[in-house]
């Protein structure tokens, strides 16, 4: 049965359904983590969730303010180092899905989490952390971000994390391991990438959103399939889990 839901809830549910049971995922805090926990509570109880700080499969009772928050380390299966997580589990190719946010994403799925060009010059924001590595070594990438014209663009101001680089075979020509799939989940729609050019392509539009709204809010051209699908809606159970057990304090899901 379809539930009433917020946009954030729809994004979390959409992302969670893209995770398969038994997969290994690296997530950062916020919607990625919420989505992973939702998957674990529903169809993917054997999902392995790895945090770059050195924590594997914790059972947090509170959400915490970031992966450096000890709330997130509660009841872990393993404590290790940065080398033990990204340096080994990720670099060895064991991560199925890397789950990232970002300041900007471009038409080849490259992500900027470092700095933004303004009229007064560059404005440094954050940096890569493990994001660049996660994009380099994960088999699949999922990007969750807010849909704004200045955020989904032709070319990122700073290429922190490599998606399909300049499209086609350019990623592997630059020496990077293969990336099987990239999806972008926004508050308006889900994007994928076409198989040949590896450039942005609409996959589905969220219920209640028009194609025009998506085009209007996107800063770059993208491919549109002949038949535009709607994103599948959350079930009551999923919404209930998000509201009452995964993020009851509504830290990330509004």
């Amino acid at each position, binding site marked *: 049965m379809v539930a009433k839901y917020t946009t954030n809830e729809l994004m979390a549910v959409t992302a969670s359904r893209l995770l398969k049971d038994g997969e290994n995922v690296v997530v950062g805090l916020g919607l990625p983590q919420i989505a992973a926990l939702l998957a674990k509570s529903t169809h993917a109880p054997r999902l392995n969730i790895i945090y770059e*700080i050195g924590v594997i499969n914790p059972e947090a009772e509170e959400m915490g303010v970031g992966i450096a928050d000890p709330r997130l380390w509660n009841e872990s299966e393993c404590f290790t180092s940065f080398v033990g997580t990204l*340096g080994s589990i990720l670099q060895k190719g064991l991560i199925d899905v890397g789950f990232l946010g970002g300041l900007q994403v471009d038409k080849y799925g490259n992500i900027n989490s470092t700095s933004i060009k303004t009229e007064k010059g560059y404005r440094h924001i954050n940096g890569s952390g493990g994001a660049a590595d996660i994009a380099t070594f994960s088999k699949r990438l999922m990007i969750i971000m807010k849909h704004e014209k200045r955020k989904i663009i032709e070319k990122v101001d700073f290429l922190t994390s490599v998606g399909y680089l300049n499209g086609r075979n350019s990623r592997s020509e630059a020496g990077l391991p293969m990336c099987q799939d990239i999806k972008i989940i926004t508050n308006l729609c889900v994007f994928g990438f076409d198989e040949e050019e590896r450039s942005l392509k609409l996959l589905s539009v969220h219920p209640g959103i028009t194609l025009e709204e998506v085009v209007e809010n996107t800063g770059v051209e993208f491919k549109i399939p002949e038949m535009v699908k709607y994103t599948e809606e959350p079930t009551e159970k999923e919404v209930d889990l998000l509201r009452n057990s995964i993020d009851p304090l509504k830290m990330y899901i509004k």
Partner: protein
Amino acid sequence: MSKLKTLKEVVAEIPDGAHIALGGFAITRCPVAFVFEMIRQKKKDLTVSQIVAGMETDLLVGAGLVKKLEYSGGSLDRFGRLERINDKIDKGLLDIREYSGMSMSMRFLAGSLGVPFIPTKALLGTEMLKNLIAKNDPEVKVCESPFDGDKYVYLKALRPDYSVIHAQYADEKGNVIIEGPYWDAETAKSAKKLIVTVEQVVSTKFIKKFPEKVIVPSVYTYAVVEVPYGAYPTAVYKFYDYDREMLENYAKVNKSEEEFNKFLDEYVFGTKDFTEFIEKVGGVDRVNKIKADPSYGY
């Protein structure tokens, strides 16, 4: 031959221009007491290396002690950004070398192993690599592996003059127990001289009860400094939570150089040591409020 030192004496011996690696991560186990003392003693021209920077690094950079910073970014988690670092980068006042988190960790790993470099696919295709190459950074080279002919980034081993981490326990020999994740293990082991500030100095008898928790055995350690609450207001798993109010305040003041300098004047220059700082912010009452629940560790 105890390795116990006071914070003042260990900081006093660090020369201007030293290369220092820091062990904190955003808002957790940041060696804040160490950094306060560095600022008090007015060190300068430091090179700082870190995997993911935290509050202590923002303080050090904001106070003007740092000439060059190698890191993969950082934040105050949801509290805010490392705006003193960001500001210096934007104004061109910092020789900045950006990496990814894993590539920084691999540089420390190579240093801790004593190997000259480690080849990796990390950084390929990124703007961080492009910038490092444009700056002729001697730490990275793009090479072809003699085994498979494939392209790799060779990362030179990082051997900082000093690594400084904050941990839960150490004995006076320098065996360090880290509770929880230990992202900073390789940072610690890579140093020429490792300085560990700890919540509590314990007996070797205690250490021997938990040999599997001794992430850094004594052979790596140069100095052990007991500084209770030495990471405050950041968190120390099993000891205390971060101080939300203090971090919110810091995330506000670090947005302006002026406000930040007032913060330094009040809390760093306005106190003679870390104990006085803890007293100033509320002493026993304040730290008791963030005392960790023993079953959760926060």
